[in-house]
């Protein structure tokens, strides 16, 4: 029974909850039990809210029993990335500096989840302040890839991807600044969408880079992702950059899964050289599936994408250096008095706290950003980066005149081993080469599994990109591809993942 609940899709659970065949308490308890069994090995969570999740589940069951009309996802539990504020629940962003901080308010996304009646299971692990592609930069230790516990689950949202791939939750939230939803989805065989910038409120998301950050849904199926996307999205007057337009019809697009006559553009610069052979092979097969489903293929070129990584690593650290200035020990979070100083000044306490509270990757980016914004360097670095960003945006616009959506592999490789790239920041950064352009241009993107790479048997991600506010196209293409792949595989990809309960017993921490 339990196993059958935790491997169900959110859509199935929702239907059975609505039909009264199962209770939210049963569903929630099943997932919490799974967490007790496997999270010692996977380490998806930084905090599990056993009591709170069950209390919400009980409340939903009571309301449903009373005949109340509930949201379609009411009673379906969810895991929340630790970058989103949750009133009364710890929010650390994977950083030592926010250890012990209990936010007094809910992020808009979390408020939406609560309004829908979704029990919040806990807060998922992440690279510190979402800086990383592996969760190895979490101050609380890395999460592990359920396909191979020696490997990374992607980052920064590796807690959310692994929580799904290890069946500890049917749904999870993520944030994507340069690929933090899509790359973890790719390496764990799950699905994730970065919506159009402004499509989901950023209020209550602890900012990494304000102009790039976007919250989005993570799940195991395209339809589940669409359903969660719909809950999270919508105009929010608390976020000035939020788009005041209706949410695109994404769930409907996922259900119709129609790509007939759709022009699909393959971005020349995001395939071929630098991409692992098995990644390229699964990508090519998926493209063929879409052709079989009635789509048309065109090739497009976006030469400025070559500079996307460099551009990103000027804009992101610049904004981050300013966004992270607030962590100064004055009002909340960690406070570390400097050693060897009697009666320290506020500035000395700030410096000592930031030294002790931030990890190396965070310090690296704060230093980079502070430098890039300095007078005398601003034009050459931040200024130039903004110009290239504009070029990239323009090239997307031109590409979308030729194609309705663009596609590429999500990441150049399958999951690498924990520790492999920790000492080589450039190698780590290169993992996001295919996902970063969408953040620079503010357009939506999705990653879904396209199979296992033959050489290592690890999941490969397929990325779909669409013009701004055309998020529904991602779901039409994603659902069409998913259906054909599922037919070809005969079972969901994750059915072939290792049995964690056996592994977990051996490696329990």
């Amino acid at each position, binding site marked *: 029974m339990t196993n059958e609940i935790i491997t169900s899709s959110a859509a199935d659970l929702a239907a059975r909850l609505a039909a009264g065949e199962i209770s939210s308490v049963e569903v929630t308890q099943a997932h919490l039990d799974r967490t007790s069994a496997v999270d010692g090995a996977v380490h998806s969570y930084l905090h599990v809210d056993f009591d709170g999740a069950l209390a919400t589940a009980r409340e939903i069951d009571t309301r449903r029993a009373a005949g109340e009309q509930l949201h379609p996802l009411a009673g379906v539990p969810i895991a929340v990335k630790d970058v*989103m504020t949750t009133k009364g629940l710890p929010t650390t962003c994977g950083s030592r500096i*926010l250890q012990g901080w209990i936010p007094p308010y809910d992020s808009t996304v979390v408020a939406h989840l609560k309004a829908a009646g979704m029990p919040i299971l806990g807060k998922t692990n992440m690279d510190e302040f979402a800086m990383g592609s592996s969760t190895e930069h979490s101050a609380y230790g890395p999460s592990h890839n359920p396909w191979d516990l020696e490997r990374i689950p992607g980052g920064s949202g590796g807690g959310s991807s692994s929580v799904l791939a290890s069946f500890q939750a049917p749904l999870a939230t993520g944030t994507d600044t340069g690929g933090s939803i899509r790359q973890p989805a790719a390496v764990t065989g799950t699905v994730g969408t970065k919506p159009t910038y402004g499509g989901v409120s950023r209020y209550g998301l602890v900012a990494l880079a304000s102009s790039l950050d976007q919250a989005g849904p993570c799940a195991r199926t395209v339809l589940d992702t669409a359903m969660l996307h719909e809950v999270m999205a919508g105009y929010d007057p608390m*976020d*000035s950059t939020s788009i005041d337009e209706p949410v695109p019809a994404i769930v409907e697009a996922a259900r119709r899964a129609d790509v007939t006559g759709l022009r699909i553009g393959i971005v020349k610069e995001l395939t071929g050289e630098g991409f692992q052979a098995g990644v390229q092979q699964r990508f090519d097969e998926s493209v063929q599936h879409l052709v079989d489903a009635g789509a048309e293929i065109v090739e497009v070129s976006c030469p400025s994408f070559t500079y996307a990584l460099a551009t990103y690593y000027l804009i992101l650290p610049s*904004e981050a250096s300013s966004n992270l*200035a*607030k962590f100064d020990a004055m*009002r909340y979070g960690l406070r570390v008095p400097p050693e060897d100083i009697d009666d320290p000044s506020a500035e000395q306490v700030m410096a000592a706290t930031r030294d002790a509270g931030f990890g190396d990757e965070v310090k690296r980016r704060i230093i980079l950003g502070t430098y890039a914004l*300095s007078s005398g360097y601003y034009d050459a670095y931040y200024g130039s980066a903004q110009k290239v960003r504009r070029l990239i945006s323009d090239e997307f616009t031109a590409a979308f005149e030729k194609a309705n959506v663009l596609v590429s592999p999500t990441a150049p490789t399958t999951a690498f081993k924990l520790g492999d790239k920790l000492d080589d920041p450039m190698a780590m950064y290169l993992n996001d080469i295919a996902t970063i352009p969408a953040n620079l241009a503010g357009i939506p993107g999705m990653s879904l599994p396209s199979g296992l790479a033959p050489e290592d048997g690890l999941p490969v991600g397929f990325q779909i990109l669409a013009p701004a506010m055309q998020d529904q196209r991602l779901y039409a293409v994603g659902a069409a591809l998913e259906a054909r792949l599922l037919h070809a595989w005969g079972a969901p990809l994750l059915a072939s993942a290792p049995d964690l309960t056996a592994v977990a017993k051996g490696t329990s921490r």
Partner: protein
Amino acid sequence: MTQATTDATLSYDEALAAYDPVMGLEVHVELGTKTKMFCGCATTFGAEPNSQVCPVCLGLPGALPVVNEKGVEGAIRIGLALNCEIAQWCRFARKNYFYPDMPKNFQTSQYDEPISYDGWLDVELEDGTVYRVEIERAHMEEDTGKSLHVGGSTGRIHGATHSLVDYNRAGIPLIEIVTKPMVGAGERAPEIARAYVATLRDLIKALGVSDVKMEQGSMRCDVNLSLMPKGSNTFGTRSETKNVNSLRSVERAVRYEIQRHAAVLQSGGAVTQETRHWHEDTGITTAGREKSDAEDYRYFPEPDLVPIAPSRESVEALRATLPEPPAARRKRLQSAWGYSDLEMRDVVNAGLVELIDETVTAGASPAGARKWWSGEIARRANGEGTDVPSYAAQLGVTPAHVVELESLVTAGRLNDSMARQVWEGVLGGEGAPTAVADARGLELVQDTGALDAAVEQVIAANADVAQKVRDGKVQAAGALIGQVMKEMKGQADAAAVRELILAKLT
């Protein structure tokens, strides 16, 4: 704490003989919006510390700013009143530096894209000379919190054992108005600085966008000053004297800094570029933070806010709401009321322009309005340590009361001394003038029989004086009039009495 050593100064005349001052004034005005610039928190002055705060103005992780439209409107109206261009498109920028009373450790401000720029303000000095102050920019920003340093002797951070921070002020909208360098002011620089701040204060008050109370910090002034040797066109190194928060202090600070700079330069030294603290009590400045060109706020466009692009229509609509500039209005009213320059200055200084205008509009004569509002009530207000408008509001005394009082005199019911008694009754809370007159039984006697009898009696009792009048010494009638008025207990019309006496004796 040990006070920094007092700097040497040169006499003002010597300083001005050798150098020309160059001034720049930066005035911060807190807008009187109901809510803060980027969140919905209240802005009430003097509230319990940290009672008007939320995740946004506390800079909690994840919180985001949203622009207060009323704040932008106020900024544009100030820009228009200062004859500025209003930007077609502008952005906020982050000014990055660490300070405990600044919750995000950056101030949301504007940098190279201010909402208003290139304006001017004409400033009239006491002798009528008009000096035009060029305005560089007026931009929007947010206020910081307030630090209270505890344990030191002076409230400054030096010597304090700890500090308390109140974030109620954090996020209150500020407009920073920056002048272009003011050259050619010469010895009148202190006077011009004061007049500029006073004119700006009146203008902004008339706009109704701020209460501009310097003593409460809703208007704050920084004075930048440098000297250049007479005949030179090259600006010297400037000092920035912060928080000069009264008109008198602005004047004194400019004067002091001229004398201090001159002493440094005269002795062959170089002026240090630094911020200076103004000491109200001693009238001097002391060195603060040294400011080098290396200080770097790492400004960049605020990514959490969308650009502001006020439509030309909305700007023109706001222009239409601008009140008449206070200086022009004063000129117009002075001429309409027929006041002398001195009378007008007294009225302005006493803050009576509005009350008199309302009173005249309600039907009183300008002379009557001035007389009643600047007499007894002013003396009493002064005694209470307040001004007439506030005092009148407190007592519930209105322009209608003055109109009524004056009409009682005009109608012949009261003479001047009776009217003064009635006014005292009104101020004493006895009611409206007619009611006071009724209650006190104050009314000129119209009964000619009683008056006639009194005149007869006084003439009889003062036969010698009466004879003098008969002999042609008309001025002697004054003594008889006084006697009759006394007999009538003051309730007679003195002119009528005089007429009656003269009729009987000549």
